């Protein structure tokens, strides 16, 4: 992908569209919440929400589903961000979900709490009565997301039915819902990974250190470079190696792979993203399980 020219009309356009969608979600629903993962998309979302309601305060809470397997850097970044901008944080705990018996931990060396997040997420949404959850998902991330709406309708069980979505025309979003149903809203739908990075640079946003290249103890599994952590067990044929790496997405330590990189500044990251030959989610072990993995998880309520 070529590097862009100097002007950034496209970023202004994307920003304005996203703010419009965020304000529509706030206006059309009684009880919105903003989903936060600690990644670049969700920190961009937090920033856009602040812009949408400035000089007022962000009028809804931020929800983080904590798997208990997060990078410590993620948690630290999250807490600083909340404090700095006076945001209300709600944490949904997968640990608690498991303890309560609502979900069962996967076993074995590939065990991941990724799927369990769905249960915790839906439980938290129900507990607080949220009727719309705003997320930073983008259509360019993955094939199944190319058809996602800005306002995505979920049934009472949080399921997404790709064949039964409301047509979305012009910039009119229909968020009317029945009791018990809820919506997901995706203001960054039209952004690409490069757009997000360019926007972060243009607006000079702070990013978690995991996105920049650093020395880390890693091991390789099925072609994916995973970090050493208390939650990953080595298999017999695997070994730890010191690598200069950065992460392109931020999820659990159990399944978020890194890429080898020397990009220690945002400029270098953007240059790397602009010329990269590997799709963004390719380092996510959870996507490799089946060709249509994402679509299956989306149907069940995954973000």
């Amino acid at each position, binding site marked *: *992908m*070529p*590097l*862009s*020219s100097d*002007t*950034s*009309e*496209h970023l202004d*356009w*994307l*920003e*304005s*569209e996203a*703010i*419009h969608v965020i*304000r*529509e979600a*706030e*206006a059309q629903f009684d009880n919105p919440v903003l989903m936060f993962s600690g990644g670049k998309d969700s920190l961009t979302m937090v920033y856009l929400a*602040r*812009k*949408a*309601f*400035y*000089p*007022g*305060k962000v009028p809804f809470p931020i929800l983080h589903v904590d798997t208990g397997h997060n990078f410590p850097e993620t948690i630290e970044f999250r807490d600083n961000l909340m404090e700095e901008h006076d945001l209300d944080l709600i944490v949904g705990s997968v640990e608690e979900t498991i303890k309560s018996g609502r979900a069962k931990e996967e076993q074995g060396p590939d065990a991941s709490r990724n799927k369990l997040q769905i249960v915790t997420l839906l439980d938290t949404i129900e507990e607080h009565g949220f009727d719309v959850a705003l997320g930073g998902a983008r*259509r*360019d991330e993955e*094939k*199944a997301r*190319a*058809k996602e709406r800005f306002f995505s309708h979920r049934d009472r069980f949080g399921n997404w039915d*790709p*064949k039964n*979505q*409301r*047509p*979305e*025309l*012009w*910039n*009119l979003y*229909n968020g*009317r*819902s*029945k009791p018990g149903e809820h919506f997901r809203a995706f203001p960054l*739908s*039209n952004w*690409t990974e*490069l*757009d997000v990075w360019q926007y972060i640079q243009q607006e000079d946003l702070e990013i978690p250190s995991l996105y920049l290249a650093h020395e880390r103890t890693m091991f390789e599994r099925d072609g994916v470079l995973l970090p050493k952590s208390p939650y990953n067990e080595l298999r017999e044929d695997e070994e730890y190696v010191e690598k200069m790496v950065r992460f392109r997405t931020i999820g659990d330590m159990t399944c978020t792979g890194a890429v080898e990189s020397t990009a220690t500044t945002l400029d270098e990251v953007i240059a790397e993203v602009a010329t*990269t*030959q*590997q*799709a963004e989610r*390719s380092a996510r072990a959870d996507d490799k399980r089946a060709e*249509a993995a994402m*679509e299956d998880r989306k149907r069940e309520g995954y973000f």
Partner: protein
Amino acid sequence: MDVLRFTTAGSVDDGKSTLIGRLFYDTKQIFENKLEEIKRNTHRDDDEMELALLTDGLKAEREQGITIDVAYRYFSTPNRKFIIADTPGHEQYTRNMVTGASTAELAVELIDARNGVIEQTQRHAFIASLLQIPYMIVAVNKMDLVDYSEERFREIVEQFQSFSDNLDINDITFIPISALKGDNVVNQSDNMPWYNGPTLLHRLENVRPEADRNQVDFRFPVQHVIRPHQDFRGFAGQVASGKIRPGEEVVVLPSKRTSHVESITTLDGEVEEAGPEDSIVISLTDEIDVSRGSMIVRSRNRPEVTRQLDADLCWMNEEKMRTDRPYIIQHTTRRTQANVSKVVYRTNVDTFHREEADTFELNDIGRVELETADPLFIDPYKINRSTGNFILIDPDTNDTVAAGMIRGVAEDVAPFGQEEEVTDEERETSPNVVWEGLNVPREDREKKNGHKSAVVWLTGLSGSGKSTIAKEVEKRLFDRDVQTMMLDGDNVRHGLCGDLGFSPNDRKENIRRVGETARLFFEQGNVTFCSFISPYQEDRDRIRELLPDGRFFEVHVDCPLEVCKERDTKGLYKKAEQGEIANFTGVTAPYEAPGNPELVVDTDQNDVETCVNRIIETLEDEGIV
């Protein structure tokens, strides 16, 4: 870098997915791991990669081998970010096509060179026209399968133009391509030396969609009221059209209370001007009632405030439309109840014929009248795509059931079947309007001016020199203290006739409006110069009839077509000959030379000075100046 949103349409086997795959591949947007996946899944016998696999979406669709919903794709070049609404060609999915077209600034229509124009092609073009997509590219695909034949290409262009003349699409470019082989998609083809026009990507990179956005009529639908503390009350929203600056006088609808813009606020600071699609917060100098659904506009430029809509409607739901119960209408940030009070007609999207109907079913398109519970603040969709659109929502299921394009306020819409029968005489004047004598008679104005008023109508081919001559004559007369006015395409096409295209009907209407405008200037005592190609004798004669004898001067600015082509000052002939401009006078549309003009000036044989002198002499001889 800016953004262009376009939609792609074509029928199932026209190679739409392959085309998108080709665009991605040749602009190097495809990631390595995706390429591997494609190679793994390609089951073709030849060496071509199955580019279509890049874009196919959901599992069920892959199994059926067709795309069945709108999918959005992204790619960019160094100059532009592109958002593609990839819509299916399958017959029953008019709904999805309308959805994709609603946000598109350009439509790519694919035609299989072997099959030519089919019913679905017409349907797509009709939808593009209905949804007012400003630009269209007709890509004649699979040229490799017809031996890259120029003759075949020309044939299809003609087929297309034979029906597109009846539609409202201003800018159509025809491009012969092979998506599979890569001809004329990103790279110029060596297989079609007879084609000198742009490649598909070149055209996509060079159209100017912002030119079609409404920059004039400021409309600001309020989304949300922001009140962080007692001292600040701001109204958040996205500018639908037009521009605004602090200090300007505005009026708030529906209360009609007047105020001034105090500031335009963003997190980045206060801004000096906001324009179309900017998300901003406006604060006003006065405490007046504003809430979600209000609209802030300039006090001297207001939308229609009405509860009666005349609109085109596309029905998008399995359950048919009902006229005996209300729906919810969503228009900008406003929601209220709406009843379909009348079905005017249904349009057969394959033949464009109007059919009688009492309801609409899934994928039906037609014209209706609606009555709303609360007033809406509307503009015709043709003039303002943002404030001219709406959706209908079923209050029981909450489904979005229809998309609407507003024509205007519903009043005296002729019932079905009568519309076509209006005679020319009836159309000429509005009912109930009597041409009253002017307060100050023209004769008095003429006396004061010291000359008579007249309309000088210059007609001729593009490039014949009409405007050059008219401007010079005007300047000379102005210097002699003659009251003058000049009307030409440049000053009427943007405003007065901004809603018109170049189809024969629109051209007729364009000339009619110019004639009426010239008549007003005439009554005001001016010598008015009208410089228009105005190819039809009938249209020019109508204007002659508006004016007293001896006051209308038809001037034929005569120049052989070959010379005009050679001059081609605006590069238009070249484009027309490459099929980029439809209905171009002298190339693809006729020019009827005046049978009995007041004057003929030959710009091939004479210089400008001579022609100018001849016109002034004629006006002097006839006692005008």
